[in-house]
């Protein structure tokens, strides 16, 4: 019970903050009072005729003028408001009276009852709304009661459907199933559990329907089927003014305005309720400027000492020298069409800082990230979820959506150009031929409305001057390359398995033979058996095409398999960077040691799996010093006192962000 009241209180406090909705509610309350106390407010008898004073313009006595029979318009408007509002409430109220039980019964019991009831509702819904009301009202004869009855029939089906849908959803909740299984009578479950939980959308819909009913009543009255003279509703007043449209056009303004404002208020209240009750709908969103290009505002987060101290701690980012293994050399040899300088980084990320706009202000999620990728090299970016790996990789492509994201410091140098300083056009030309990306979720990364052949082919066509036919040919070659039969060119994404879709994504990324391929957890969303296949495919394609790779993953096993060098991220920073073999055999940061210990491959049967205690701090949660300190077995007081820079550990190719690195002996075994 208290839960229900809490919900209402919370909804109300949210609703109160919406000025538009509050104004609308105020207007409706005022209107309600006017309708209730119409007799006291009306300056004249609304039905008293005064033919001498017909068609008077507004004056002190008749402040909205008089109509064709000399009746006071203001008084008629007030008395009509009572009629119009009463019918709206009556129609929606009686519709709910029918619809709630129908919806509850259909949704709760399902089966034949559901089928029967819903077929009837479908039938009623296939009538154009007003036509059904017209037919019923027409047969019953004109009059206010008949009009209300006719309109009720119109509103029952949509409410029933809504109620049924809600009931179905709530019914499948665990607590309702549990209640059912311990033998609680259905009626009790419906009244105690289903109804309160299903009612929110109905409340919203009620507000919208009140406006709809008002409009519909006005329509019926306009056609002469609703209120009969001398009584008036706003609709019948409009009808009357229509007769004098050529001579006294002003007469139609006020009743029309009354209808429009009232319906607008009902709708605004409904929208406000929807937002307040947290029901998804088409709602306002923050302003978005540029699609497909992350905003860069360097220095936007230069707030005070912390940043300055961090900058002081790492004056010039130390980038380890290239490691030219045989494998990398072989890969570079594959790229015959370009001259490769293996000693210069293809990509270098320098002091990258990314912040998110939140209600609490700008929040740094990635900070002081430095690394380089040399031609042909594969760098693994490892860390738990929330460590900033994906944000970093998307920043390189400038694909993080702005807002909320923006780059607040640093450079991303790709072939000597700072991607963060380029225009949309320039970045667009890099995406595809120079850098390409494969995403985590193949199920949603392909457009469901186009064939994969189309989506692969266009990736080529957007960069190279080839025609449709040639594009299809290239798409076929690419499909073949990633191991999909070329007969599947015309397949839509939903016709392919997850693994196949990821292969198609790889084909898209490789379409323009990129120099750098960024892979953001490309196997995480796939079955384990498929993971191995995709990984194997990516490895062989890399060696065949010779591109450099940034491989983002949380799986150290994958890293060992595919990467030349590894950077470990923790809470938005790189904490260790080294050649893959060095990192595995000789970790130089306590966090890396913890990750290695937690690898299931190294756990003996019967032994408990190692888990690093605690959890990753959220952005903005961590202190000035080492972010891992509160989970670290080796932490001392000074670890938390100052920002710690990424410095060299045992050799210049091995970096660690730990001030105790030279005193500790770390390793896999405890």
């Amino acid at each position: 019970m208290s839960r229900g009241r809490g919900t209402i209180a919370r909804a109300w406090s949210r609703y109160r903050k919406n000025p538009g909705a509050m104004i609308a509610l105020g207007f409706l309350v005022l209107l309600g009072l006017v309708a209730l106390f119409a007799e006291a407010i009306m300056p004249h008898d609304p039905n008293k005729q005064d033919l001498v004073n017909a068609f008077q313009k507004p004056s002190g006595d008749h402040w909205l003028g008089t109509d064709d029979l000399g009746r006071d318009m203001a008084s008629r408007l007030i008395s009509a408001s009572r009629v119009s509002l009463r019918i709206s409430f009556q129609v929606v109220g009686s519709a709910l009276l029918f619809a709630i039980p129908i919806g509850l019964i259909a949704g709760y019991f399902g089966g034949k009852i559901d089928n029967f009831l819903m077929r009837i509702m479908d039938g009623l819904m296939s009538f154009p709304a007003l036509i059904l009301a017209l037919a019923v009202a027409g047969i019953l004869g004109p009059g206010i009661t008949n009009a209300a009855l006719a309109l009720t029939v119109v509103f029952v089906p949509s409410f029933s459907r809504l109620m049924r849908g809600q009931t179905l959803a709530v019914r499948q909740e665990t607590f309702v199933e549990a209640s059912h299984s311990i033998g609680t009578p259905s009626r009790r479950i419906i009244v105690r559990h289903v109804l309160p939980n299903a009612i929110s959308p109905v409340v919203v819909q009620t507000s919208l329907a009140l406006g709809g009913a008002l409009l519909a009543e006005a329509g019926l009255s306009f056609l002469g089927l609703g209120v009969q003279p001398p009584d008036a509703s706003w609709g019948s007043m409009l009808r009357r003014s229509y007769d004098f449209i050529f001579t006294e056009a002003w007469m139609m303004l006020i009743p029309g305005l009354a209808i429009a404002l009232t319906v607008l208020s009902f709708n605004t209240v409904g929208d406000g309720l929807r937002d307040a009750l947290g029901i998804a709908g088409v709602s306002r969103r923050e302003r978005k400027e540029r699609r497909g290009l992350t905003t860069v505002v360097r220095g936007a987060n230069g707030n005070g000492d912390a940043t300055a101290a961090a900058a002081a701690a790492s004056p010039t980012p130390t980038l380890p020298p290239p490691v030219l293994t045989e494998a990398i050399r072989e890969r570079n040899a594959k790229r015959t069409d370009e001259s490769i300088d293996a000693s210069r980084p293809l990509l270098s990320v320098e002091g990258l800082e990314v912040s998110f706009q939140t209600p609490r202000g700008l929040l740094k999620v990635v900070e002081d990230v430095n690394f380089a990728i040399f031609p042909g090299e594969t760098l693994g970016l490892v860390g738990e979820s929330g460590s900033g790996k994906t944000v970093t990789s998307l920043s390189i492509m400038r694909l993080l959506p702005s807002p909320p994201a923006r780059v607040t410091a640093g450079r991303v140098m790709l072939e000597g150009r700072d991607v963060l300083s380029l225009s949309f056009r320039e970045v667009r030309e890099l995406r595809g031929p120079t850098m390409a990306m494969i995403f985590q979720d193949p199920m949603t990364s392909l457009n469901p409305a186009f064939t994969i052949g189309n989506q692969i082919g266009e990736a080529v066509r957007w960069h190279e001057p080839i025609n449709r036919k040639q594009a299809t040919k290239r798409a076929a070659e690419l499909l073949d390359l990633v191991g999909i039969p070329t007969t599947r060119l015309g397949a839509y994404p939903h016709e392919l398995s997850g693994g196949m879709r990821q292969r198609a994504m790889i084909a898209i990324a490789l379409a323009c033979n990129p120099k750098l391929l960024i892979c953001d957890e490309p196997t995480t969303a796939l079955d384990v058996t498929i993971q191995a296949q995709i990984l194997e495919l990516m490895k062989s394609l890399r060696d065949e095409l010779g591109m450099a790779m940034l491989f983002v993953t949380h799986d150290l096993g994958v890293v060992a398999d595919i990467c030349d060098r590894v950077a470990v991220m923790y809470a938005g920073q790189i904490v260790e960077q080294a050649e893959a073999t060095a990192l595995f055999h000789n970790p130089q940061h306590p966090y890396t040691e913890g990750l290695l210990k937690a690898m299931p491959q190294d756990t003996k049967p019967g032994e408990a799996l190692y888990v690093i205690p605690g959890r990753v701090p959220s952005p903005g949660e961590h202190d000035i010093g080492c972010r891992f300190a509160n989970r670290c077995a080796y932490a001392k007081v000074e670890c938390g006192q100052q920002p710690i820079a990424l410095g060299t550990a045992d050799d210049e190719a091995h970096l660690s962000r730990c001030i105790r690195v030279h005193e500790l002996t770390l390793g896999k075994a405890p």
Partner: protein
Amino acid sequence: MLTMIARRLLVLIPLLLVVSFAIFGLVVLVPGDAAITLAGGPDATPERIEQVRQELGLDDPFLVQYGRWLKGAVQFDFGNSLQSSAPVTEEIRDRLPVTLSVVGAALFVAMLIAIPAGIMAGLRPGGILDRLALIGSSIGISVPGFWMAMILITVFAIQRSWFPAIGYVPFGEDPVEWAKHLVLPGLALGALASASQTRQLRGALLDVLDSNYIRTGWAKGGAPRWVIGKHALKNAAIPAVTVLGLQTGALLGSGVIIEQIFSIPGLGTYLVRAIQSQDLPVIQGVTVLFVLMNVTINLLVDITYGYLNPKVRVS
């Protein structure tokens, strides 16, 4: 695709049965002795009452009456008008093109406004155009169409005579006049329909632009005209088209009032006249036709939906 259409048509059969039963059942709602009421009330001559009773077969059991009516209805025979004694079907045939013209004009206007407005608003949420579109659509949803029609007549037909205030000219007679007569009704009906259409398109576009496959589009190095123009719009059209189907139902209904205001001799004015004289066969016949139009439009919407969303074609 063909199986999908066939399946949709099959589902329609029970639906139309329910509908036909409801429509025929209207006769039960006739107050008092149906024969007397339909013949024109207590003042009607006994001969006239007897004639109506015979013509509608009101003495037979209800189900027999329904069976007979349904048999006629499936052959588009709804009997004769009690008013003019002419076959209802013939009278409908004369008026159907008129109503289709009005509804078509309204849909045209609605699309003409909603597509650019919805796209502009969806591309720059929070921007000036977006705010204008939101305000405009809020007003559009709240304003009664017939009031809008009266204002249009006052401004564009009476104050300055750009367009005729009332009437209708068949297309075959004079296409230019036909179009001119449809401008104001089309605007009155279509401007309001465009309001919710604009909102729908905006919302759908916002959701689609946030989706992963649009990110893929940017990652491929797509320009806005490809990523938004090709990828986003096709997907954003799916919910917009669905709402279009629902909208058309409302459009057919409010069209009745609009026809009345502009004195357009379509099905709407025919229905209103029949209602005023309680001409049961006409009310039934026209209602059936309106339902059929609504159902047909929704079927067309489903087919479009199948084109836009390949997933629907198979499942």
